[in-house]
């Protein structure tokens, strides 16, 4: 697996934002039947999720998280040199959403802005990329904005995805600090699993789909749960153990294991296989599987009241297939409580 040890970059803060609108899974009983919804809820562990408004994008949720995090850290917009946006639900095909967010947040024109397309592993992949570039830009202050609105591409008649996914965004602040504890990353890719979790419409491979029912062409979200289960069961335990070993920690030296909130059934299975002795927080019961945002959302949900945090292992895995883990010290990170918002950007007016 690809591995990186990175010195001199500090995680200063993490914030997460969700839409105001809450949907209880029980409300879907009318569509799918009460018994099957209850059984599925018991397995996935998702009781409710937040649903973005019709005009509300992942970038809007990230914007709210970023604005509040900048204020909390007392970082002026001029002090930020890099913004990285990670999502598979961007505002547009083009331009890149990171450019739009640079402008909305009032960051300078000298700021480097980059979009990355990753989902379940996207927070860690983004952290890896942002932290790697952080020391090389001036100023070094970096915003990593990670979020998704997967509820917008689930099919209305697909029970498995409708009772699972929710929307969320996040912001993470990084800064070059010479004596920061090292960050360790480990990850890999297997595009052989591409078709197992896919939205095949809306890109350029299937430009003119017959009988389009949605903006996503014939392909709304398609998910092969059994294949994804087999892949994660195979890769994630060794990924987590590997990154802990890379950091030179014993498993008892890590305080926190934050797993991508795929579903409760899978998290229970992985927890039994990994046998992590510390805390393994869960947020999917109230927020669902929020794709790339699930790790920072879980940190904000579980940890805002228990600052300061210590050593954490973060592991994302899924769509791609792709998987990535980080071993990091969150002792210096300000964690904000989860915030909720209905804000949506109006491109015509140029304001929220």
């Amino acid at each position, binding site marked *: 697996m690809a591995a990186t040890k990175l010195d001199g970059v500090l995680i200063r803060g993490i914030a997460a934002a969700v839409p105001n609108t809450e949907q209880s899974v029980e409300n879907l009983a009318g569509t799918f039947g009460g018994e099957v919804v209850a*059984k*599925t809820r018991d*397995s996935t562990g998702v009781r409710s999720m937040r649903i973005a408004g019709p005009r509300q994008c992942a970038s809007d949720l990230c914007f709210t998280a970023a604005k509040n995090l900048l204020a909390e850290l007392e970082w002026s917009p001029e002090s930020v040199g890099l913004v990285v946006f990670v999502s598979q639900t961007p505002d547009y095909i083009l331009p890149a959403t990171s450019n739009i967010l640079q402008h909305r947040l009032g960051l300078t024109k000298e700021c480097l802005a980059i979009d990355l397309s990753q989902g379940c592993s996207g927070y860690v992949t983004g952290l890896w990329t942002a932290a790697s570039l952080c020391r090389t830009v001036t100023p070094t202050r970096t915003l990593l904005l990670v979020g998704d609105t997967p509820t917008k591409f689930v099919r209305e008649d697909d029970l*498995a995805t409708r009772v699972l996914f929710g929307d969320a965004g996040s912001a993470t602040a990084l800064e070059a600090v010479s004596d920061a504890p090292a960050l360790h990353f480990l990850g890999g890719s297997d595009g052989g699993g591409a078709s197992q979790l896919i939205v095949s419409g809306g890109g350029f491979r299937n430009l003119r789909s017959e009988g389009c029912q949605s903006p996503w062409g014939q392909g709304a979200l398609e998910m*092969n*749960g*059994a*294949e994804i*289960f*087999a892949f994660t*069961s*195979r890769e994630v335990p060794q990924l987590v153990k590997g990154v802990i070993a890379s950091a030179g920690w014993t498993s008892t030296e890590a305080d926190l294991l934050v797993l991508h909130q795929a579903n409760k*059934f899978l998290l229970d*299975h992985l927890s*039994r*296989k990994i046998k992590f002795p510390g805390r393994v927080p869960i947020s999917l019961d109230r927020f669902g599987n929020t794709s790339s945002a699930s790790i920072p959302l879980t940190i904000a949900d579980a940890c805002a009241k228990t600052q300061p945090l210590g050593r954490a292992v973060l592991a994302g895995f899924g769509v791609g297939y792709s998987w990535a883990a980080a071993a990091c010290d969150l002792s210096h990170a300000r964690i904000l409580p989860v915030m909720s918002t209905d804000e949506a950007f109006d491109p015509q007016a140029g304001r929220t």
Partner: protein
Amino acid sequence: MVDSDFLRQLDDLFEFDAGTITAESELQQLPGWGSLTFLGLLAMVDEDYGVALKPQQVLACVTVADLMALMKAASPSG
């Protein structure tokens, strides 16, 4: 693996009375077979028997006996 133990675990997974499922039962014809029981089966076989079955292999099994043969062939201890 002990076949009778595995059959009892399958009964539990499908929420049947003990003794309902036999080696001759057709796996994908069992009432309740679906994505949740499929995942439950994969997890149980992995955790209790140390066998990581490929979903495609399981779908190729007709009877529970086929599944047990697959597990024995893939099992480190036979």
